[in-house]
């Protein structure tokens, strides 16, 4: 709730030089590297194990669970990548994440624009209303939401996941975007008005390009949230009529692992392949995600 607002209202700012408190404690250097190494190993060790396991045969895994692949095999990967099921899962996740992201960005920026740059009664109330949304977690709303979607005929459809996801991403989105839009100087708007632009024209031609960094942050958050989401797909899609080939990844992976629980190597391959999109996306957007965090706590 309110705390998250402080976390996220961080407006972008130039990076401060990191405080290098420990510079003179040279004796500690090897120790620090050791700690760093241990922490890193614990963090990525299991992930590496899963990836390596995907290159082994189930017999090999059963014989020596902690060993290295012997022999290396690409068969698991080939089977997973060769079947339509994995690609169907990926496609579903892409549709859900892209739909949610697009929806959040479009709907969010319009509302944030009004709250940030229009003067009218009830503006503060509107802002408070959206920020209060942080107090209503998806977990609490999930059950009635599924019943609602059922009566609306959206149960078991992608839209049934996308629409609530957009709604639940709106509070953070508006909290991030409003200060962003407000930071754009009044003079720009006046200058645009003198040049004969309407407010909407100002929004399109000036505000939108200037607020790109904020939009990207909001988009990344919405995308990752939707990509990793499980509760909503579990309640809305897994109990519906969509075939499991078209379930989003988190559901698809759990389903696959239950079905093929005897074939550990195949499950490991499926799991590691399911990790790749998130890891790749993170590598690409790392600056945004971590940088956003830093702006946030400093704010």
């Amino acid at each position, binding site marked *: *709730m*309110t705390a998250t607002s402080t976390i996220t209202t961080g407006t972008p700012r130039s990076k401060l030089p990191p*405080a*290098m*408190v*420990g510079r003179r404690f040279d004796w*500690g250097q090897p120790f*620090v590297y050791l700690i*760093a190494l241990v922490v*890193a190993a614990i963090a*990525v060790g*299991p*992930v590496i194990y899963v990836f390596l*396991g995907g290159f082994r045969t189930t017999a090999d895994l*059963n014989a*020596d*669970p*902690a*060993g290295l692949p012997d022999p290396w095999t690409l068969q698991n990967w080939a089977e997973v990548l060769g079947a339509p099921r994995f690609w169907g899962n990926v496609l579903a996740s892409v549709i859900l994440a892209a739909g949610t992201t697009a929806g959040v960005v479009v*709907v969010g920026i*319009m*509302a944030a624009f*009004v709250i940030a740059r*229009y003067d009218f009664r009830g*503006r*503060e109330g*509107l*802002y*408070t209303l959206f920020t209060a*949304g942080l107090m*209503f*977690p998806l*977990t609490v*709303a*999930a*059950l*009635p939401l*599924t019943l609602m979607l059922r009566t609306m005929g959206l149960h078991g459809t992608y839209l049934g996941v996308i629409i609530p996801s957009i*709604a*639940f991403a*709106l509070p953070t989105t*508006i909290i991030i975007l409003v200060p962003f839009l407000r930071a754009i100087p009044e003079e720009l708007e006046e200058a645009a008005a003198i040049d004969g632009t309407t407010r*909407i024209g100002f929004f399109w031609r000036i505000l939108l390009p200037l607020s790109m960094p904020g939009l990207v942050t909001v988009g990344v958050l919405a995308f990752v949230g939707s990509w*990793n989401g*499980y*509760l909503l797909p579990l309640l809305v899609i897994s109990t519906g009529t969509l075939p499991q080939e078209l379930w989003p990844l*988190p559901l698809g*992976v759990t389903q696959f*692992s239950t079905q093929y629980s005897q074939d550990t190597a195949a*499950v490991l391959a499926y*799991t590691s392949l*399911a*990790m790749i999109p998130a*890891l790749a996306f*993170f*590598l690409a957007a790392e600056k945004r995600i*971590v940088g956003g*965090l830093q702006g946030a*706590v*400093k704010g």
Partner: protein
Amino acid sequence: MRQRIEIALLVGPALVLFLGFVILPVLLAAVYSLYNLPPAFRWEHLADPERFVGIANYERAIGNPEFIRAIGNNFVILALSLVIQGPIAIGVALLLNRRMRGRGVLRLMIFVPYVLAEVIAGLSWKLLLQPQGGVNAALEALGLGFLQRNWLADPDIALWTLFAILTWKYVGFAIILMLAGLQGVPEELSEAAAIDGASWWQIQRHITIPLLGPTIRIWAFLSMIGALQLFDMVWVTVAPTVRGMATETMATYMVQQGSFGGQPGFGSAIAVILFLISLTVALVYQRFALRRDLAGSITRGVR
């Protein structure tokens, strides 16, 4: 006039979505919780006086040892997170807060568990922690075979195993958050203290950690709320029977009873209780710990 239309058109979609899919369901949860509803819910059921049961669902929840244990588990996870993950994160962040080779790579690696979906991370651990899985095999190979356990299936230790997985998943986020917070701690203070003869430990204890306070308090808040809402990891890693015995949380109990158990009314009552508990924790924490940090940031509203 034109401005009114603009406002309506621009805010309208967000407002409709928000009221319809965030606020309304939570209100509906409160309504449903007063009814005994069948899984195939229809609106007419709410008009049926025979289905109205008053607070019976709440009484049933409160009087149910399984649910009480679930609440307890949530709070155990919450307390353990604060007491164990917090110090780990602060300690590692303090140690790593220096110029060093490979800092960028290290930061990336620490962040990896946090980036993965909770479900996918959970499944990976489920495979690793099988009786014949990688963890037990590694223990055997290290000569620690006596430590082998059936990690996720033994009700005596399942909750601890679960907590260890959660720590693996979320401590990286905490470390990155603390490192970010440390960048806001001015270097000059520690330098001045060092000149005055303070040891490294004294500097951390009396200067850095207090100045890191706001970051720590925000992290603690996020961690507490996360612990109370915990669902994905428990649902995926622990088999239903063991979960019922040892690791049920409010959210898993809610989904189990409300959705898969076909009792949306009872599940809604659980949701309302979950909401009230989270809200209370949030408000109390805000009142006593966050007030200083938040002064003016939200109460002031827009400009």
